[in-house]
């Protein structure tokens, strides 16, 4: 990976490769996750895309993208630690695969630059109809997130655990911020100006053009953008306002969802970080993990039981889908498996399996432009950003004892149980 800071402050990272049939380019604005502002930030990429002056409407913009062999310009909303990352991911066919001598890349960069720099505006306000439609779209996106009950359980557990802290906020914003009277066209336009002036901006490119040429094109087309210097940091998740213990919620579901939130206090900057990654892998990171082998295979309680570890704030979330009558049994077994890990009951085979599994997944990510970008972005929040290869080297140094010691940091904080309404019977 090569890095270059453009004259406007944008940090550009590129991976130069001929492997793919498409080029990939992302533009990401980074701001601290803040209550109320998060909804404005989430809305912005959609409004800019839908109301871009050179095209006049979302329809014409979409037609322009389609003319370019179905180039995609996706709005991307993420959170990383206590920051909100929002912007665009663009993917387009390389010129050599076009039917005639079409120059797709230049046209696509033109579209991106238009979207970001030339919004439809009048007297310091966005178009009211365009804003209204996009607010509705985002509102429906937020509401439908809860359709996936696995995601819903995870969202709820995390929000309860981190209540009152920035991490409890959603990268999609909140529905309250999308009503008619809130975030009006002029407020949103002012916010656009603020975002353009005071955010940190990252750009990422994967394709066959080298970094100097990419930098030159971006300077040419996106020179008017401004990226502020920002100290991007990681830090343990703030649970001081969180709810401890078990919270049960009821919805008309067939299968219960059990989610358990843990703190570890170990993040990407800590010496114990690679060991913590290994500990989580052994615990719940795949078909060789303690959770899969015991809660699923041995006890047949569930189809899935896994754990995910947040590298920027140290949070671990365990999630599983079980029948109502088995919730307690599953919870007990999950706690039991953690105890086993913490007491050092880990065979060499288990440890090596976990290591091979995580290294394999990391190597696989190198074949995916979006995975490369995502890894690269997350690393920017640590004091010493690594490449995938460097991270793999660190993981290869970790010993079983170090992983066991790291697991001692895992402390249960919140349990969320989503259960059905009636008594479900086989």
């Amino acid at each position: 990976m090569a890095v270059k800071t453009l004259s406007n402050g944008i940090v550009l990272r590129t991976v130069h490769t001929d492997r793919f049939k498409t080029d990939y380019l992302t533009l990401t604005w980074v701001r601290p996750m803040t209550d109320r502002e998060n909804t404005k930030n989430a809305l912005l990429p959609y409004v800019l895309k839908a109301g871009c002056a050179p095209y006049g409407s979302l329809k014409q913009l979409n037609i322009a993208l389609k003319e370019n062999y179905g180039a995609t310009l996706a709005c991307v909303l993420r959170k990383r630690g206590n920051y909100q990352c929002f912007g665009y991911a663009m993917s387009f066919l390389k010129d050599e695969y076009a039917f005639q001598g079409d120059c797709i890349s230049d046209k696509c960069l033109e579209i991106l630059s238009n979207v970001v720099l030339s919004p439809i505006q009048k007297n310091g306000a966005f178009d009211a109809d365009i804003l209204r439609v996009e607010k509705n779209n985002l509102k429906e996106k937020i509401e439908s997130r809860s359709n996936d009950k696995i995601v819903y359980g995870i969202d709820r557990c995390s929000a309860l655990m981190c209540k009152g802290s920035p991490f409890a906020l959603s990268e999609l914003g909140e529905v309250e911020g999308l009503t008619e009277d809130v975030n009006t066209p002029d407020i949103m336009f002012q916010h656009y100006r603020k975002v353009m002036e005071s955010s940190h901006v990252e750009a990422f490119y994967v394709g066959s053009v080298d970094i100097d040429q990419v930098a030159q094109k971006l300077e040419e087309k996106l020179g008017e953008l401004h990226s502020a210097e920002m100290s991007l940091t990681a830090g343990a998740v703030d649970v001081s306002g969180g709810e401890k213990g078990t919270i049960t919620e009821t919805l008309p579901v067939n299968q219960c969802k059990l989610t358990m939130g843990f703190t570890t206090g170990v993040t990407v900057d800590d010496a114990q970080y690679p060991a913590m990654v290994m500990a989580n892998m052994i615990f719940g990171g795949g078909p060789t993990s303690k959770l899969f082998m015991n809660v699923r295979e041995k006890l047949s309680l569930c189809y899935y039981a896994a754990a995910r570890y947040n590298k920027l704030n140290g949070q671990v979330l365990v999630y599983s889908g079980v029948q109502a009558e088995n919730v307690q049994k599953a919870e007990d077994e999950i706690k039991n498996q953690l105890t086993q890990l913490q007491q050092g009951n880990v065979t060499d085979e288990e440890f090596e399996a976990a290591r091979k599994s995580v290294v394999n997944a990391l190597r696989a990510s190198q074949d995916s432009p979006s995975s490369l970008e995502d890894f690269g972005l997350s690393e920017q929040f640590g004091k010493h950003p690594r490449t995938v290869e460097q991270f793999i080297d660190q993981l290869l140094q970790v010993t079983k004892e170090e992983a066991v010691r790291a697991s001692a940091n895992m402390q249960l904080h919140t349990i969320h149980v989503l259960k059905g309404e009636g008594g479900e019977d086989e």
Partner: protein
Amino acid sequence: MNKIENKRLGETILEYDHASGLKVVVIPKSGYANTYAMFATNFGSVDNCFRLNGDQKRVPDGIAHFLEHKLFDNEDGNAFEKYAKTGASANAFTSFDKTAYLFSAADHVMESLDILVDFVTHPYFTKESVEKEQGIIGQEIRMYDDDGEWRVQFNLLKALYEHNPVAIDIAGTVESISHITHETLYDCYNTFYNLHNMVLCVVGDVKPEEVLAVCDRHLKPAPKLDVQRIIQPDEKTIVQDYIEQKLSVAAPLFQIGFKDTSDCFTGREYIRREIEINILLEMIAGRGSDFFERLYQQGLLNSQFGTEYMSGRGFGVTMFAGESQNPEQVRDELLSELDRLGVSDNRALYERSRRVVYATCVRQFNAVDEIAHAYIGCYFMGASLFDMVDIFDDITYESVMDTFRQVFCRDKMALSVVRPAD
């Protein structure tokens, strides 16, 4: 060995007829960190009735999927335990017309391939292991029962197909799987997991001779079997034009589906059909289309909306899916739009849509897993992977509009809705 090159794409396929009867395929991808291998059989959830050596059998719903779970077991342990030693990320899936066992690995690729070829060709089913799995699969079924997207689609299939087993849940039901025994698993295995009915596809930076060596190590020549799949004759009509279910969803989910009742295509014609329908879907309802953009501005559709042509052995459904507060109105608007397109000159729209679908086919070649999936999908339908890109030379505006008239018939359409439970 059959070497097929596509200069337009810069890709190559190497096909081997292994001595055992298995088709082995290597698709080299130089510079890729990851290799993806898929060992698949032409047997899925629709194959619930067959005749082997004169004996007719009707097997319980969900058996192909159940077998997929159980095949990982062996006398000396479970395949996941073996993969644990090589670090491969392994999985499997059962669809309507095929079952596939796969892994992706960056290191120890041949050791992982060894495990794959070994466990798929060594069935080991016992009464105890079958009972144990019923609990796990029961949970999987219940997980899907809560899944609005899954339910809206299966309900659509129920509305379109009366006897065709495509309308049966792939995993079956908690009740149907209770009738599965280790004997019936062996019956299905012995019938369909015959190497002549299977294919191994490896995509990545690999040496073909190493792949063949793994096959030589494990595979014995397979006998040719006389298997007849008993296929219910498909009705030209649909069951009902509307079906609804209530679930815990935020807004109504819908799928509008048109049943393709033409005689089932195979080979290059199958690919042609698929591509033409995808071009039509892009024309009718893609981003930038009159239909989508108008309904999006009216708040009848949102960014969750999409289209798909879902097809395979013995079935084809053209689908418009998404979320809407008024699915019936979406359907009515769609029908109006179809009427309009039927009588207008859509050449410019066609040209643009053709590019989009072409690019989608080319993009597949970015990812080793997509290539493997696409290869096997084409192979089992008697087509070649590169047909997906070359077929564009044969497709014209006229041929696409012909297909339009065949596919988008009002009397073959149903609307499936999943509404929020109160």
